Each structure stands twice: as C-alpha cells, then as structure tokens.
C-alpha cells in the first residue's frame, strides 16, 4: 500500500492552517478605559465562563484547523495505491531468473552473503514452479557467468545451475542480463524475476531502457531485494607510491560507507613480502559522501618492484578489502663495471672516468663493483641490476651469462674501443647487440682535432627527462673522432636509437631483450675516441642512465592498471608468445590483436605478463570496480518499474473527493459548535 500526491505543491497552502492562531495572537485591545464598581461580577462571570469554554474552544480551534488542513490536502489530489495482486508465478509458462552476482552481493549479514541468500531463494522459487513451466537463468555480474540460456522445464537442473553460479568480483550488469532475457523471450510475454541487492550508483538507471522494453512486451518484472540490512563497508579507494623518508611513502585513502565511525588496521604488503600495518580511523558516512581518511606508510630503503597491496580487515564485504598498486624498485642500483682495458695505471683504465662519474651518486643511486672480464661470470640479475661491459676484447666466455642476465631482467651497457673485434662481438653478443657491429671508422679526417658533435637528445625520452629543463644542449659539446658503425637495422620495435651524431651516425642505441635491455655506446667510455668524459653532461648522464636502467628494467618498466571484468590491453612489440599469470598463479586466457595482448581479469590482484620461467616483463595491477563498494541503496528496480508502468503496479484510489466532503463536514460541524458557544464572551472585545 502506498500513498501519493498528484499535486504535492498544494501542500504548501497548509501554512494557511496557522491563520486562526495568528489572528488570535495579534488581536487588538480597545483604547476606551473606564472605572467599574462591579468588577466582582465580571470576575465571577469570567471564571464561570472560562470553565465552560475551555474544552469548547479547544475543540472549535481543532475542528477549524483540521477542516482547513483537510481541504488543502484535498487540493493536493492525494491518492491511495494498493498493490496489484500478483498472479501465481509461472502463469505465463516462461520464467527468467536473473541473479545479481556482482561484487556488492558478497556483502555479509550473519555470516551469509547476499548472493548466497539470493541463490537459496531463487533455487527454492524454481523448485516450487508448476510442471511444464520453462525456466532460464542469467547472471547479472561481470564477467559474465554461465547460467541456463534457454528455457528448461527440468526445474531440478535449473536450481542446480543457480546453486553453482559463482560469486563474481566485477560490476553489476543488470542491463546486459535484462537484454539477454528479452532476447530469449523474443518479444513474447514472460515473467522475469530479478534477485539483486539494489546497491551501487546508477545500476538501475542504466538498465531502465531494458526495463521499459521488457514491460512493453507485456512481460512482468518481479524484483526480489536481498540483503536489506543497513549498508556498511570499508574500502581502500586509492593507493600510490611516492617520495618520502627512507625508501618513499605509500599513501592510500580509506572510505567508510557505514553509518558508524570505524578504526581498522590496514596492512601494506610489498612484492617482496614485507608488511607494514597502521590503524586508520574513518568517520561515518553522511548523506552526501562516504567517510574518508588518508593514511601513509614508509617504505624500507630496499624493496623489490612489482605490484603491492593495501589490505583492510572488513567483514562486511571482504572481496573489496585489498587495493593493488605498482611499486617501483626501491633502493640502490647495484652495478657491475667490467673493465676490458684496465691500462697500466688507474687513470688509464677504460672505466676510470665512468667510475668516478657515478661514484658520487652511490649513496642514493648506484653501488659499484669494478671487475675484470672474468669476474662477469658471476653476473646474475638477482644481485646486479646493471652491468657495463667496457671495451672487452673477447666476450665469448661471458656471452651465456650476459644473455641470461639480460633476458632475466638485467640491463647491459656496452661500450667499445680498440680491443673490440666486430666479428668476435657479433658472434658472441649477437642475441644482445641492437645491430651487428660494422667496422670502426673515423667520423672526421685524421688531421682534425675536435671530432664530430652529438645531436641534442629528444627531451621526451625517459632517459633524458632530467635534461629537459637544462643540460640538453651540453650534449652538443661532446666531440667524437671515432666510432663503430652499425650494420643497417630497423628502427622501432625492439631497437631504438637514443643519440646520434650530427652526420646521423648512431651514438647510443637501445634494444629490449626479454625482460631486460641493452644500451650500446658506439664509442669509448674513456678519452680514447671521444671527449665525452670531459664534458659537463658526462656525470649526470651516466648517473641518470644507471638509475634509470636499474629502476626501470626487470619488468617494472611496463606497468598497467586494470579493473575486474574489463579488458586489459597491453602493447606488445614482439612476436613472441607472452603468457599472463593471474594472482593465484593460474594461467589467464588471452587474445592477440596487432601490437597488443588482451585479456579480461576475473579477480583482483597482480597479473604478471612475460615468458615462462622468466621474471615478468610487465605487471598489471587489477582492482575491483569502485562503484561496487558503494553499498548504499540506489534507485530500486521496484521504483523504476512503478514509474514506467504505474497502472500495472498498483490500483489507485483518488482521495480528494472524500477529503473535500470531510473538510466541508468539519466546517459545518465547527460552525454548529461555534453557535452553541457560551453566549457571554469576555474575550469577544478583541
């Protein structure tokens, strides 16, 4: 039963009900004042009359106010709505059951989720249907779950399918489920029973068109609301790594959709397993917005890169308690410097200048290990993030180690010199070189003293971002007399030229190999062929290069974000078979598009992309849809249906004629009572 007003604004006239009271309050007193001896008579009369009139006047005032209110209410055209008696379910012979299995349906009450309650009620409903009634089942969550897509009169089978439906972690797709139901009904009438919690902003609004079309066919829409308890839920709505003390700070925001303030422990779990817990006090939700609190934890000086998480302890809706975010590698970059030309004194070492250029940054950027070529056999991506191979004459014994190191996520910097033989390098380091080496050649005539200058680098490149404000032109003062030429290579894909000389000859070329990358500097690291080491940009460039390589390679360079149930598109520049591994270690189905790898995550967590048995080349941090955490009730399906087809939802009885009659009767009654009022009126002078 419900009550409505066709002209609710008329209720504003109810203020007129105050007029009799106001008139009483503002009565005027006469000016004429005279002495009177028989005041005792007046006082006795007043007391007598007041006793008689007290009840009488109150009754009269109440009747007049009530009459006015009733008449004004009648002008608002009220009507009584009685629900239409529902016919027995299954009367049409075709019933479609829609179960909302979106994330918000995991909300718990007394240890049982709304989805479990819906499953139980839906299965019972199906089992009670009469014989011969066809039943189909669709889920209204993302990703789509298999139901019973065609009408079946095996009610036991359908009930079993309902009980087997999984709880999804994605958004509500009521519109999609209703569309599938309409398609199955094929424009003929049927009955569609929808089990949903009605939570989440906009879900019903987005489905309104489908509801309208369904009702237009003469079908009945029968919403069944489950989980109607007071909304309560905590969620981490955002989390991100940023600068700060020690190794930086993880900042996150906690929202409270419940009516009471909450203090909850929040644990930040890093990819290497380290955990930090803080307590967060979150205020209660208001009508306008959920309660919100910001919190932060400090990250240790050393931490592995990957996908980290912030996890709450919230029994109301456990599925949205974790928020996943990317964490870059934190801490010093350990660099192995392999000196292929140590020279007769330290100052004649191939790496003398590079070592000194980077050393001042060791406290914050790089920890250096200077070794002879044989020492590079110890190289592993688990210990070193970057290796610099400088003018090594015979890299052949090192090649397998170097290839494993790079493919496993390490970064390798190659510099050349007089010790380098193109044929030896091409043979040993072929899988790593951006392009096969050609011959060593002079960039300028032998009698020239200065050498050829570099073109200024592209400030848009990540590597050169620190030089965008200043220092970029310093590269133009680098003069090089001799380089190794490169055999023709195709720009793009794996190989990318980062620096060129004025003549266009490549100076610094990058190649992505497996999970790592290789940088080839086509000249010497010392002063042998170039004056680079004497230029102001030398130290900041190598400091930046080693930090960039150490922090960004190892899979951390490729970071993507995703939402459960929505396609994740990962740009892939190689033709190799990448695999996607889900948070539970399960293999995730993928599809390929030109230059891209697609997959749809079905649960929140860290998804790794890469080759088998290698560190991931990319990470995807997948979170649940934010709207599902908002468990406050929105527009209900009942309201939507009633608005679209009011006559089919309720019988309506206009109340204004009866109220008009009642108001008039009250006025007449008040008049009659007023006439029977005690005739002596001490107050009537007003």
């Amino acid at each position, binding site marked *: 039963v419900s009550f409505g007003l066709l002209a609710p604004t008329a209720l504003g006239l109810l203020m007129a009900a105050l007029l009799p009271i106001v008139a009483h309050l503002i009565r005027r*007193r*006469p000016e*004429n*004042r*005279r*002495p*009177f*001896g*028989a*005041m*005792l*008579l*007046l*006082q*006795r*009369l*007043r007391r*007598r*009359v007041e006793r008689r009139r007290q009840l009488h006047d109150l009754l009269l005032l109440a009747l007049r106010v009530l009459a006015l209110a009733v008449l004004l209410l009648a002008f608002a055209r009220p009507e009584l709505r009685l629900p239409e008696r529902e016919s027995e379910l299954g009367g049409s012979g075709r019933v479609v059951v829609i179960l909302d299995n979106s994330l918000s349906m995991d909300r718990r009450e007394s240890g049982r989720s709304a989805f479990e309650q819906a499953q139980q009620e839906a299965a019972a409903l199906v089992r009670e249907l009469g014989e011969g009634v066809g039943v189909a089942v669709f889920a209204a969550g993302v990703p789509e779950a298999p139901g019973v897509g065609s009408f079946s009169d095996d009610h036991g089978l359908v009930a079993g399918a309902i009980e087997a439906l999984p709880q999804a972690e994605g958004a509500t797709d009521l519109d999609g489920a209703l569309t599938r139901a309409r398609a199955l009904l094929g424009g003929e009438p049927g009955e569609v029973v929808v089990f949903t919690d009605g939570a989440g902003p906009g879900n019903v609004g987005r489905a309104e068109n489908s509801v309208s079309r369904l009702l237009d066919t003469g079908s009945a829409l029968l919403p069944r609301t489950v989980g109607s308890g007071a909304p309560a839920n905590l969620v981490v709505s955002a989390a991100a790594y940023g600068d700060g003390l020690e190794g930086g700070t993880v900042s996150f925001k906690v929202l409270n959709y419940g009516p009471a303030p909450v203090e909850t422990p929040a644990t930040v779990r890093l990819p290497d397993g380290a955990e930090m817990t803080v307590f967060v006090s979150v205020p209660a939700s208001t009508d306008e917005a959920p309660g919100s609190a910001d919190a932060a934890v400090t990250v240790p000086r050393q931490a592995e890169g990957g996908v980290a998480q912030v996890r709450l302890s919230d029994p109301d809706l456990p599925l949205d308690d974790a928020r996943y975010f990317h964490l870059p590698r934190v801490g010093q970059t350990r660099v192995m410097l392999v000196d292929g030309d140590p020279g007769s004194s330290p100052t004649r070492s191939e790496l003398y200048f590079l070592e000194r250029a980077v050393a001042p940054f060791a406290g914050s950027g790089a920890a250096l290990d200077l070794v002879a070529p044989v020492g590079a056999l110890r190289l592993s991506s688990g210990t070193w993030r970057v290796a610099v191979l400088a003018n090594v004459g015979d890299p052949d014994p090192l090649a397998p180690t170097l290839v494993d190191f790079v493919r496993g996520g390490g970064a390798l910097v190659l510099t050349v010199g007089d010790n380098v033989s193109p044929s030896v390098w091409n043979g040993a380091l072929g899988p790593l070189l951006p392009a096969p080496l050609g011959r060593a050649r002079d960039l300028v005539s032998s009698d020239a003293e200065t050498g050829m200058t570099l073109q200024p680098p592209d400030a848009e490149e990540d590597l050169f971002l620190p030089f965008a404000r200043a220092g970029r032109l310093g590269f133009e003062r680098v003069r090089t007399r001799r380089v190794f030429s490169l055999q023709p290579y195709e720009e793009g894909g794996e190989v990318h030229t980062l620096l060129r000389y004025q003549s266009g000859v490549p100076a610094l070329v990058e190649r992505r190999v497996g999970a790592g990358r290789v940088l080839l500097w086509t000249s010497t690291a010392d002063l042998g062929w170039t004056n680079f080491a004497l230029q102001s940009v030398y130290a900041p460039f190598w400091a930046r290069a080693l930090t960039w390589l150490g922090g960004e390679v190892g899979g951390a360079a490729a970071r993507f974000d995703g939402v459960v149930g929505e396609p994740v598109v990962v740009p892939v520049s190689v033709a190799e078979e990448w695999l996607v591994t889900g948070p539970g270690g399960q293999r995730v189905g993928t599809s390929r598009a030109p230059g891209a790898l697609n997959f749809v995550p079905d649960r929140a967590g860290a998804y790794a992309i890469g080759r088998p048995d290698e560190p991931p080349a990319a990470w995807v941090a997948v979170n649940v849809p934010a709207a599902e955490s908002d468990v406050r009730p929105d527009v209900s399906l009942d309201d939507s249906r009633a608005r679209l087809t009011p006559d089919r939802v309720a019988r309506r009885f206009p109340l204004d004629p009866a109220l008009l009659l009642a108001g008039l009767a009250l006025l007449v009654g008040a008049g009659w009572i007023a006439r029977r009022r005690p*005739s*002596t*009126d*001490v*107050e*009537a*002078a*007003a």
Partner: protein
Amino acid sequence: MEAPEVWGGALDALVQRRADLRAVQVYDRDEIGLAFAQPLRLYSPEGGADETLDPAAMRAGVREEARRFFGEVRAAMRRRRGVHVLAEAHAPLADLVANVLLGREAGEVP
C-alpha cells in the same frame, strides 16, 4: 462588593451576640446592565487588572451573574435570620429606610 464567603464569618459572630442583622444592598441598574456602546476596558477603583469586554456580548451574562450574586447575598442573610433589603440606586430612600426599620425583606432580584 464581596462574595458572602468573605463576610459570612463576621455576620456569624454578630449572630452569636444576638444582634439583629439588616443588610441594605444598593445597585446601579446601568452598571449591572453594562450600558456601554463600544468594547472597552474596565478597571476597579479598588485596584486589580483591567477587564476587556464587549458590552453587547456580555450584557446578559453580567445581568445573570448579578442576579445570582444578589440571590446568594439574600440566602446568606436568611441563613442568619437577617433581613436583606435590595434597592436600586434611584429608588425612593423613604421606602428603603422603612423596610430596614420594619425588618422587611424587600427588593426583587432584577
């Protein structure tokens, strides 16, 4: 003008001393008839709050109250074997004095 309850005790004391009681009550017909045309405020020369009234609406009531009051006074006098003489202010004084001296209850309650 006071209610019999106020002065009744004093009369009782006189009765116990075997005194003869004679009460003369004089009223103004215009006064108890509220001979005013417009609403007005009345006050007692003996003090107290004003009374606001509409003479037309109260006229009958005041007259009735006066009749009731005179009746109460007369009854109080009778209970004490006294004589109550009620007289309009403009009535002949000789009749009034004669009634008092002869101990004749007189004067109709208006």
